[in-house]
């Protein structure tokens, strides 16, 4: 490893900037968190004050727990996000490998076609998607959401992953072929572990939009038993009155699972970055 310039002022400046950025990024989250533990009046009187013995209240959380099937929404969101990510990564990586590794007719065209999806937002096709889901009877199932999110995530996944897969050493794959490994083993055991950082990047990119999406749950799966967290929280936002305690509590709880997923993926990211740097 080479030593970077270790001028203490540089280091301090760098850390200062990073800390400042962290504070700015975390501030809204912090405000949501503290206010979710306050009584309604206190939220509006002093939004930035920490909850004290006077203003402390769990009313928001109690409302959320009482109202509807919060845990079911939670579970739905989790299932949809994790399943979509799984399929995006699996199919994205497989398609990327085929495009990067094998020479076949229309390889380039296929790559371009798949990349086209990056530029065209999937919501343009909402009506057609809804018709298809109605025709196949998938409306108001989680599968409807999973399929749509998988389709939405695939183009970018294929694009990013195929670029990385091209960089995996040909010799390594050939060594596997000579040793009698099947193409599937080569893909899963040799290639995938080497593009893990790219997979984590793709996962992080896709995770937040899926978790936060309101559009497709509202259109494709608004039924009580398939509501996602984002959609479920909408009951607290009315046209005339909004139950801020409940909204803030729901949001606070919604942060947790994404945070956990992010920690899992980012560990891969960091490992990938450092292992690439020290060649």
């Amino acid at each position, binding site marked *: 490893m080479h030593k970077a310039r270790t001028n203490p002022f540089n280091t301090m400046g760098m850390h200062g900037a990073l800390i400042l950025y962290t504070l700015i990024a975390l501030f809204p989250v912090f405000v949501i968190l503290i206010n979710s533990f306050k009584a309604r009046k206190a939220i509006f009187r002093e939004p930035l004050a920490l909850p004290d013995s006077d203003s402390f209240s769990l009313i928001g959380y109690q409302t959320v727990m009482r109202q509807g099937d919060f845990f079911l929404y939670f579970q739905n969101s989790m299932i949809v996000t994790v399943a979509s990510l799984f399929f995006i990564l699996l199919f994205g990586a497989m398609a990327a490998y085929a495009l990067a590794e094998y020479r076949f007719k229309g390889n380039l065209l296929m790559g371009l076609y798949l990349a086209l999806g990056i530029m065209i937002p999937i919501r343009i096709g909402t009506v057609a998607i809804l018709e298809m889901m109605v025709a196949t009877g998938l409306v108001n199932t989680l599968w409807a959401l999973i399929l749509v999110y998988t389709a939405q995530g695939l183009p970018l996944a294929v694009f990013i992953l195929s670029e990385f897969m091209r960089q995996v*050493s040909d*010799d*390594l794959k*050939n*060594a*596997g*072929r*000579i*040793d*009698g*490994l099947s193409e599937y083993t080569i893909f899963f*055991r*040799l290639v995938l*572990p*080497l593009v893990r950082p790219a997979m984590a990047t793709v996962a992080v990119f896709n995770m937040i939009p899926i978790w936060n999406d309101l559009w497709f749950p509202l259109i494709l799966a608004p039924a009580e038993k398939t509501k996602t967290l984002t959609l479920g929280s909408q009951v607290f936002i009315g046209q005339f009155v909004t139950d801020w305690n409940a909204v803030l509590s729901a949001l606070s709880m919604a942060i947790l699972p994404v945070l956990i997923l992010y920690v899992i993926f980012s560990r891969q990211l960091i490992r990938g970055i450092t292992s690439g740097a020290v060649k």
Partner: protein
Amino acid sequence: MTALKLTNVNKSFGEVQVLQDINLEVEEGEFVVFVGPSGCGKSTLLRVIAGLEDATSGEVTIDEQVVNQTPPSKRGIAMVFQTYALYPHLNVRGNMSLALKQDKQPKAVIEERVATASRMLNLEPYIDRYPSELSGGQRQRVAIGRAIVREPKLFLFDEPLSNLDAALRMNTRIEIANLHRQLGTSMIYVTHDQTEAMTLADKIVVLRHGQVEQIGSPMELYNNPTNQFVAGFLGSPSMNFFPAGLVHAGDDRTIGVRPENLYLTDDGVLDAEVSHVEQLGADTNVVAQVDDHQITVRLFGQHFIEEGQNLRFGFKPENAYHFDRDGLRLR
């Protein structure tokens, strides 16, 4: 018995023809080296033999069997790559035993072969380490070990030493020569280092632009090149070429003389001005200009020659090679 036979092998990538009409036989136990400039198709030919690329046309025969349709793992070959290509997720033992496990060999056989190979290559202390914990030379030995344990009928080496430093390269070269002696298996070895080619080979195949220029033993090629390319490719410093017109007016052939066959003499035919001198201790290389032609002369021992000096060089007629305009040797 022939270990490998190539009959009219062609290979194209789309429009580009990379290999043209290759014919070659490798005898049992022979050490064959492919040499040629970068991009001439050495690796491609090796990959065709291994089955990693399909020949566009022609036949590949290994051990008397046509293997065009046989997958690489069933061809009875083992390959060592320039970049080592060790499996990063397996330790040395795992790397060496993977092929045998795939082949469903009994545990005892696997263990015994891995033990033998690691003893041969002095890999025993590292057997439980992962590739990232090994030095370049050790990794290359593991790669060779991985080839040995398969007990192949034919070894393929693609520039195995080019990532090693000079001292290690020499050691590993000797190790590979020893290995060949011990195992007695046929080996094909790709390099563009002609020292490796000359020292290791029983038979050298010189390739250019995807075609075989000449096949023969190192000394045959050195003493009897069929064309100007082969003559210039083997030997270091490489052969001098100049128009025969410099010696006999009106002669339109090209003359080739090896640097060591030129000598200082007062009645030499080449009147040269020295432009550069390299003292190597045992030899002195003199680079000089004859008219516009640069020649290199290798003098034995130490000579103290000044740059800019005018010298005359001569050569014996039997040491001169003649080539026609297309580079073909005239005898």
